[in-house]
């Protein structure tokens, strides 16, 4: 009786194709040793939205019966390997499905592995990853999160590298040779990608995570009502109107207590309240109405509601008043405005530190100008990264079916 159950946790839209390639790659690699498998996305996650955490699954088993045994449910309740394609997901995931915040390691079995693409040290990630009552392994594949714009797939070999790493984690199901063979045959494969998979296999960093380690926060959750408790007519109470703040000077709207949205964020706005000209543009433009009106008429971005889209940064007329900073640079969702009100000098130091770090202010996703993708790939190459070829890099031209 042997089966391998993997989940691939990814950022909606940006990594949709990447996750699908990995899930398919797992099944096709395992098929090399005659195993049966299935690859599927969590249906409730789609239609996706930019950045919303979503999941694909891959299950492989020795026999069809074992495969069925492990599939006889909507989605796996336990996974041997949890593959995480962006390290900011380590703060937990909340999908479209409205069931609260789930720790990234929630489904990982005792002794199982969380495989993550990250440039952060283990200790820094374990400040975000929730504590678990069993020990498991954390494996890091050294890579930036592979984001691209909309449906574009970024050919930076992440799918091949993840499969190579998986061969190290679960060699009983996917040998490195089988992975190489599958990559070679797959429509997006190439010799170069096989080499990338082998390098990832060699370079994977792994350590055990003890039950004492991790973020001690209890993720928010809620009970779903019984059929006779629900209001009839597919009707739900509206979100109540907000409360005036401090004697009517400011205004804070009420927000949905069941869907907080913040795990969609890979970057967050950092606001310089000293230079704000109170023009309202961020407040008007925010698609998620995440700005609270403060008593001094500045705007505080509520970090439980912000999806990190960056529209506020784009519309703000004051240079460096709103700056998007990578989510990994923050440990909580505390109010920036309250921090600023308490100690303006300390806030200035904090702000300068956050927006002055070039590594964390690089845009995490999307393209700002035509040709940015080519430039990024070339820069990666200059730093020892992937080789660029004419046309679509890495594509297996001979497998293009006509």
């Amino acid at each position, binding site marked *: 009786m042997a089966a391998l159950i993997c989940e691939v946790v990814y950022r909606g839209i940006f990594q949709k194709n990447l996750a699908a390639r990995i*899930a398919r790659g797992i*099944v096709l690699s395992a098929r090399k040793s005659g195993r049966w*498998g299935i690859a599927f996305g969590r*249906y409730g996650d789609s239609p996706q939205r930019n950045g919303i955490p979503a999941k694909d699954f891959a299950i492989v088993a020795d026999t*069809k019966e074992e495969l069925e045994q492990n*599939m*006889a449910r*909507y989605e796996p309740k336990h996974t041997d390997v949890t593959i995480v394609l962006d390290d900011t997901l380590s703060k937990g995931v909340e999908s479209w499905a409205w069931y609260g915040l789930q720790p990234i390691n929630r489904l990982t079995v005792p002794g199982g592995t969380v495989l993550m693409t990250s440039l952060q040290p283990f200790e820094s990630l374990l400040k975000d990853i929730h504590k678990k009552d069993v020990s498991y392994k954390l494996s890091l594949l050294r890579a930036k999160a592979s984001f691209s714009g909309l449906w574009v797939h970024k050919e930076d070999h992440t799918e091949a590298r993840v499969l190579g790493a998986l061969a190290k984690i679960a060699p009983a199901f996917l040998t490195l040779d089988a992975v190489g063979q599958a990559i070679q045959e797959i429509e997006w494969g190439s010799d170069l990608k096989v080499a990338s998979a082998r390098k990832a296999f060699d370079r994977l960093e792994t350590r055990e995570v003890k039950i004492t380690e991790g973020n001690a926060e209890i993720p928010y959750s809620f009970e779903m009502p019984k059929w006779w408790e629900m209001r009839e007519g597919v009707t739900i109470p509206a979100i109540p109107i907000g409360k005036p703040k401090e004697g009517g000077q400011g205004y804070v709207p009420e927000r949905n207590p069941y869907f907080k949205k913040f795990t969609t964020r890979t970057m967050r706005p950092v606001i310089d309240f000293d230079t704000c000209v109170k023009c309202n543009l961020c407040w008007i433009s925010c698609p998620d109405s995440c700005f609270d009106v403060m008593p001094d008429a500045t705007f505080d971005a509520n970090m439980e509601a912000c999806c990190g889209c960056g529209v506020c940064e784009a519309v703000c007329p004051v240079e460096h008043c709103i700056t998007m900073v990578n989510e990994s640079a923050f440990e909580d969702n505390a109010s920036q405005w309250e921090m600023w009100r308490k100690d303006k000098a300390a806030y200035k130091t904090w702000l300068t530190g956050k927006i002055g770090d070039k590594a964390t202010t690089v845009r995490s996703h999307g393209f700002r100008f035509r040709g940015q993708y080519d430039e990024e790939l070339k820069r990666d190459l200059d730093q020892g990264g992937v080789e660029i070829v004419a046309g679509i890099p890495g594509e297996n031209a001979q497998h293009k079916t006509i």
Partner: protein
Amino acid sequence: MAVATTAAPAAAADEKELLISGSEAVAEGLTLADIDVVTGYPIRPYDTVIQAIAKKIANGQLVAEYIVAEGEHSQFEIVKHASTVGARVFCGSSGVGWAYAMECLVVTPPLRVPMVALVGNRALDDPGAFGVEHNDALFVRDLGWLLCWIDTSQEALDTTLIAYRVAEDRRVFLPTAISADGAFLTHSQAITLVPPKSKVDKFLPRYDRGDLLLHPDNPITVAPQANEDWVIEIRRQNDEAMKRAYTVIEEAYADFRRVFGRGPENPWFEEYMTEDAEIILVGMGTISLPIKVGIRNMRAQGKKVGLVRLRWFRPFPTEQLVKALSKASAIGVIDRDYSFGSPFASGVVANEIRAAMYNAEKRPPLLSFISGLGGREVTLEDVYKATDLCYNAAKSGKSDVKTHWLGVRE
């Protein structure tokens, strides 16, 4: 999340193996059937088929007219017309999209348009939900559409070929809807065998409309106005065509097995461990997966349980089902649909089987269950609970008139 349990077909040397979803498998079938006209209007989960066909056409693997309609009503109207001029056509929808096309769905059988449609089963609005319920496809159960449910991506591909063969048989000439559970089948990729075109050509003849072809060389008028002097005869014609479908379906499956060397012997339903079964559970579509796994687990504890997974719902295999179900001590029908205010407030399948069993010599107690609505997981615990209730009924020898809802929060 469906996979084939029936004996794993040994891949014939000329078949290629692909890892594809149920929707992609339908597109493979359509490519092999070399369809001429396809219309598209997106709705989940059906849209995955349209995406797969578009890719086939873009890659030059399929040459077909791909028409993007402005709604489901139009897309079914377009293929109806294309079919009357001799094109092999395909279209489909899901949930309320299928409902929006209802006027065109209604006229297709009397005009004897042998189109094939895919219904990616989806809950009806409201609430706007994507998950599977069978009520959408069941809208056409009384209209002269042939209607079947599939369970795996392999069955999706095979049934697409069989559906054209049956629908376009001149004895039938009725539209055929293939129902596929949203998500569980439409979006799950499993290992699937794709036969070569040369074999398909031996199985599926060209579409020949004969004297019904709308063409200047064959001047005809289709669908003139007709009132009480004519209508009942037209309905009787449809009735006869549907009756002839029984034979045509059996012939098609036999021929499928002859040409491809695989496929079920019983076209109408899959019987899983029913031979010695005390309790037989009945369901349609991918609900078979938790039921089969549950049956294997229960048999390990000595409970003799089996499954009848219904493939063809129209025409309804009355005789065959009565024969298969009469031998059980109790029957449990699990509907992934509802029929509010119906006899015993049961689901559609349960009441169809009650009607079918009415004249049977041996009528075991029949229990009705409603489960898995809106894509809710049907758990192994649900299967065990249904089986236990069936055992109680078998012991008392009485049918429980209550319909049991499984997996609802109460």
